[in-house]
C-alpha cells in the first residue's frame, strides 16, 4: 500500500535539508558550498574513487545488515563493532596459519569469521536470555573489551608479526584470497558477490520464511508474537547469533580482497557506521544498500574536500543531519499515510458506520 513516492520522497527531502544545513555551516567557515559539493561529486570520476566507494559500501552494507537483523525484533545490537573485530582477528590468524587449496581456504576463513562473530555475539545473547542483562549494556562493554583481546592475540608473543612498526597477523596465502574484479584501474572486491547473496538471503529470509515472519512479528509486538507461538527467548538468541554471524563477515571484503592480514592499524568503527546505515535503510535490504553507498560516498568525499581546503567535518555533520532528517521525514510521511489508509477504509465502508480506529490503537 505504500506508494513509491512515499518511499523515495523522504530520503530525498532529508538530503536536500542536510545539504542546506551544511551550506550554512560552510558559509560560516568561509568556504564556497557550491565548490565543495562540486568537488564531492567530481571526485567520483577521479581515479579509483568510484570503485573504492563501492568497496567501502560493501563493508558498510554487511555491517548495516547485521544491525538490521537485530533491529527487526527490537534488539539493539550495538555489539557489531566488537563482533566484527573479534571475527576479523580470528579469521586472519587462522587464515594466515593454514595452507589449503584455493577455494577451500577462502571458505574456511569465511566459516571461521562467521563462527567467531557468532561466538562473540553469544555472550550478550546468553546473558540476555538467561540473566536478563540488557544487550545495550553488555555489548557496549564487549565492544571495549574486544580491543584488549585483539591486542593480546596480535601480540608477537601470540600470533602477531612485526612489520616495520606495525603489528599484524600472518599474511594469508593467495589460495585464501578472493580475487578482485578489475574495473579500469581499480579493482572491485570479489566479495561483493557474496555480499549481494547475503543481502538477497536476508530479503528472502525476512519475507518468505517462517523464521523471518516470526522475527518481524516479535519486532512489531512481542506480546502478539508470544500469543502466536513465537518463542521470544529463542528468537532473541537466534537473532543475536545471526546478527553476530553477519557481523563476523564485515571485515572479510577487505581482509580477503585487499589487506590479507589484520593489523593494529586496521580500521575500527564499521560497527557503529552499520547502525546509522541500517537506520537510513530502514532495515530493508535495498534501503540499506542505498544507505551504505551514500555513507561511503560521504566518507570518501571527506578526503577530497581537504584537497580544496574545506573542513572535512562537514561530511560528519552531513551524515548526522541526514540520519536525523530522514527519520523525521519518514515519520511525517508515515503519519500522513496511516491517516490516508484510515480515510480509505472509512470511504470504502460508505461513511455510514464509523470505523473504530481507536480500538486498533491509532498509531
Amino acid at each position, binding site marked *: 500500500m505504500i506508494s513509491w513516492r512515499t518511499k523515495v520522497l523522504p530520503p530525498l527531502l532529508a538530503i536536500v535539508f542536510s545539504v542546506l544545513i551544511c551550506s550554512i555551516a560552510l558559509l560560516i567557515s568561509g568556504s564556497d558550498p557550491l565548490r565543495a559539493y562540486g568537488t564531492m561529486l567530481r571526485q567520483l570520476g577521479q581515479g579509483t574513487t568510484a570503485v573504492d566507494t563501492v568497496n567501502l559500501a560493501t563493508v558498510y552494507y554487511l555491517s548495516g545488515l547485521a544491525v538490521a537483523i537485530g533491529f527487526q525484533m527490537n534488539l539493539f545490537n550495538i555489539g557489531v563493532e566488537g563482533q566484527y573485530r573479534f571475527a576479523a582477528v580470528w579469521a586472519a590468524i587462522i587464515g594466515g596459519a593454514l595452507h589449503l587449496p584455493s577455494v577451500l581456504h577462502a571458505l574456511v576463513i569465511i566459516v571461521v569469521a562467521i563462527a567467531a562473530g557468532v561466538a562473540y555475539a553469544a555472550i550478550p545473547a546468553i546473558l540476555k536470555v538467561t540473566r536478563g542483562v540488557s544487550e545495550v549494556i553488555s555489548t557496549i562493554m564487549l565492544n571495549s573489551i574486544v580491543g584488549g583481546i585483539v591486542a593480546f592475540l596480535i601480540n608477537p608473543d601470540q600470533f602477531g608479526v612485526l612489520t616495520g612498526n606495525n603489528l599484524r597477523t600472518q599474511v594469508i596465502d593467495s589460495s585464501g584470497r578472493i580475487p578482485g574484479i578489475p574495473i579500469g584501474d581499480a579493482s572491485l572486491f570479489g566479495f561483493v558477490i557474496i555480499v549481494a547473496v547475503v543481502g538477497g538471503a536476508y530479503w528472502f529470509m525476512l519475507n518468505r520464511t517462517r523464521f523471518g515472519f516470526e522475527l518481524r512479528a516479535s519486532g512489531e509486538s512481542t506480546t502478539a508474537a508470544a500469543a502466536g507461538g513465537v518463542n521470544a527467548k529463542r528468537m532473541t538468541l537466534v537473532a543475536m547469533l545471526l546478527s553476530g554471524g553477519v557481523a563476523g563477515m564485515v571485515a572479510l571484503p577487505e581482509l580477503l580482497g585487499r589487506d590479507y592480514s589484520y593489523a593494529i592499524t586496521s580500521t575500527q568503527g564499521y560497527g557503529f557506521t552499520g547502525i546509522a546505515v541500517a537506520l537510513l535503510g530502514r532495515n530493508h535490504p535495498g534501503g540499506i544498500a542505498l544507505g551504505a553507498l551514500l555513507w561511503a560516498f560521504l566518507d570518501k568525499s571527506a578526503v577530497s574536500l581537504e584537497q580544496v581546503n574545506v573542513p572535512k567535518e562537514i561530511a560528519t555533520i552531513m551524515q*548526522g543531519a541526514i540520519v536525523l532528517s530522514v527519520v523525521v521525514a519518514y515519520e511525517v510521511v508515515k503519519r500522513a499515510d496511516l491517516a490516508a489508509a484510515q480515510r480509505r477504509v472509512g470511504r470504502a465502508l460508505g461513511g455510514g458506520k464509523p470505523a473504530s480506529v481507536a480500538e486498533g490503537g491509532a498509531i
Partner: protein
Amino acid sequence: MAISTASQAGDATTVPTAPVRRRLPGWAKGILWAVGVIAVLSAASYLTGVNTLTSTNTAQTALRLALPILLAALGGLWSERAGVINIGLEGMMILGTWGAAWGAYYGGPWLGLVAAIVMGALGGLLHAIATVTFNVNHIVSGVAINLLGLGIAKYLATLIFQPLSGNPRQSPTVPTFDTYSATFLSDWLSGLEKQQRVGVSDAAGLINGLITGVSPLTIIAIVLVPVSYLVLWHTRFGLRLRSCGENPVAAESLGVNVYTYKYTGVLLSGALAGMGGAALVLLQGGGGYLEGQTNGRGYIGLAAMIFGNWRPGGLLGGAALFGYSDGLQLAGGGKAVLALLYGAVLLLGVIVVVQLFRRRWLGVVLGVIAAGILYWIYWANDSLPGDLIPYTPHVVTLIVLAVASQRLRPPKADGARYRRGEGD
C-alpha cells in the same frame, strides 16, 4: 440455588493484598552496601598485601573517573524518567567538552561550566524536538545526535580553537577548577592509613581519597545525586515528570502538559551530559578540549544508569563501580586487578553462605564453581595479561550484571511514542 461451592477458597473474608515486606530505606541499604564493600576490599587488601585496593590515591582517581560517568548517568535518569530514551548522551557530552573549553578559555572554569551546560542542553533540545515533537524513534534520534555532536564539535573546534592553539583537534590550555582538601581531617586519616590496621586503615584511605583534591564541580556532581532524588521523588515537578515516563496519557488527563515535562527532562538531561563533558575538561587531568576525549563515557553513563535501575542511588553505585575498577587498574595495574579478583572470591564466599541459609542450592553450586575458577586464576598467575588490564571496569560491570540477578524496572512508558489527544 444455582451455585454450588466446589471447593472452599481459603479465607474468604479478607481482601487479597500483596504481602507487604518491610524494606530497608534506600540510604540504609546504601550504607550497608558501602560497609560491606569496604569490608571485602580491606580483607582482600590485607590477605593479598596489595594496598592499592584501598589507597587514598585509588579512591581519588576513582572519584575523578567516576564523575563524568555519574553526570552522564544522571542525564540519562532525567530523560528516561520523563519517558525519553537517551542514547545521545555521548554526543551531548562531546558538545559539553567543547563548550567547557570555550567558556573556560574566555571566562574561567565557571563560565566553562555554564557553557558546557548550555551546549549539552542544545543537544538535548535537538533530541527533544526529534523525539517529542516529531515522535522519531528515540534510539534513532540518539544515534543521529551522537554523530551530529561529534561533527559539530569538530567543526567548531576547527573554526574557533585552531586559530588559538594552532590545532584543530585541541583547544589551548584552559583554567581548571581549583581543588580543596579537608586538610585537618585528611592529615588524621593519612596517619590512620599509614598504620596499616586492617579495616580502619582501609576505610581511612578510601575516605581520605574522597576528601582530598576535591573541586567545586565534584561537590556539585555528588550533591546532584540526592538533589535529583529529592526533586524527582519529593516535589510536584518531579512527580509530574515521572508520571510522563510512566503513563503520559494519564498525566495528560490530569492536566499535566506532557510535552513541557518531556522537553524539560530531556533538556536537563542534555545539560547534565554537558556537565559530564565539563568534568573531563575542567577537572584535573583535563585542561582543554581534545577530540575523542569522551571516549565512550556517555555510553558507559547510560550503562551505569540501567545498572542502577533508573534510580539516583543505584546509578551512583554503577558509576562508582566503574570508576573504582578503572581507577584501580590505572593506579595498580595487573597486581591490583588480581587482588580485586581475590576480593571477588571473598564476596562469592559470602554470597554462597547467604544462599546456603536460603537453601538455594543452585546458587550455592554456581557460586562455589565461580569462586573456584576465580581462585584458580588468582593462584596460577602473578599478573594478568597487560593488554587486558585496561578493560577491567568493563569486565567487572559485565560480571556484576550477570551475577546480581536484579530485577530492572524501567519507567513504563520509556521510549514509547506519545501524542497529545491520541490516548484512550
